[in-house]
């Protein structure tokens, strides 16, 4: 018997944020990331019969998403011949000789390693977030990740401010414990 089964009714609630975070860190375009996530869910629906049940639902959806992201870059690159790269160097005579220094790599800039670590950290946070009750996770995301103010969240979710802070407190405590176990 297959270890895992698909339940598309829960896909959006369970995986949309995870997949979006995965995509935005790779394509750096919010609208495109949404399109790719949407296409992934639709492609998943179409190829449900190919699911063997060996991987988890999320892993399977991520594998579809990866292909979508590769296709996206392929499409961009197929237009490469039409693209024109423009580099505007400073023509100001006062800064003559400085152009090379200006373009030397910043040693304090982010490296590929930092980026990988950030991605892994983001995945660890999402793994912990997925263990929270739905309401706590929703409030936490709105407050912490999207940076909405208290009043907006209270109006949108129809809760009081004290209710919000209770949910935030519970979410933060559970997340900190989970991260302590899995990351720190």
């Amino acid at each position, binding site marked *: 018997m297959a270890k895992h089964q698909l339940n*598309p*009714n829960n*896909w*959006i609630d369970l995986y*949309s*944020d995870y997949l*979006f*975070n995965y995509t*935005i*860190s790779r394509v750096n375009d919010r609208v495109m990331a*949404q399109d790719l*996530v*949407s296409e992934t*869910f*639709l492609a998943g*629906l179409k190829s449900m019969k190919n699911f063997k049940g060996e991987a988890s639902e999320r892993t399977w959806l991520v594998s579809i998403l990866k292909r979508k992201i590769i296709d996206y870059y392929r499409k961009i690159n197929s237009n490469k011949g039409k693209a024109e790269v423009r580099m505007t160097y400073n023509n100001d005579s006062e800064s003559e000789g400085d152009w090379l220094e200006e373009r030397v790599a910043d040693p304090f800039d982010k490296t590929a390693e930092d980026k990988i670590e*950030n991605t892994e*950290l*983001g995945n660890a*946070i*999402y793994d912990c977030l997925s263990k929270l009750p739905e309401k706590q996770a929703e409030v936490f*995301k*709105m*407050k*912490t*990740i*999207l940076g909405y103010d*208290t009043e907006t969240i209270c109006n*949108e979710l129809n809760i009081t401010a004290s209710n919000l*802070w209770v949910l*935030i*407190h519970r979410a*933060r405590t559970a*997340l*900190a414990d989970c*991260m*302590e176990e899995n*990351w*720190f």
Partner: protein
Amino acid sequence: MKKSFLFISCEEAKHICDKTQYGEATGWERIKLALRLSWCRITKAYSNKNNKLTDAIEHSEIDCLKNDERSKIKQQFEKELAKRQ
């Protein structure tokens, strides 16, 4: 019980600590928290954990969908799902 002017309970300290993570604690609240932190080990441990979590989240640069963005994807998906059921 009458609320103290300067001394706060552990629960209140944790609440202020949470608000501090979002920059929503007032100056006076932060003073009261600092006072509590100076002697209460439980509050201190909670505060350390809380700060560590905030740092991790900032460092990870995670993102998520806004409610309207998720609804749009959901609507599109449910339409397709209904066709197949």
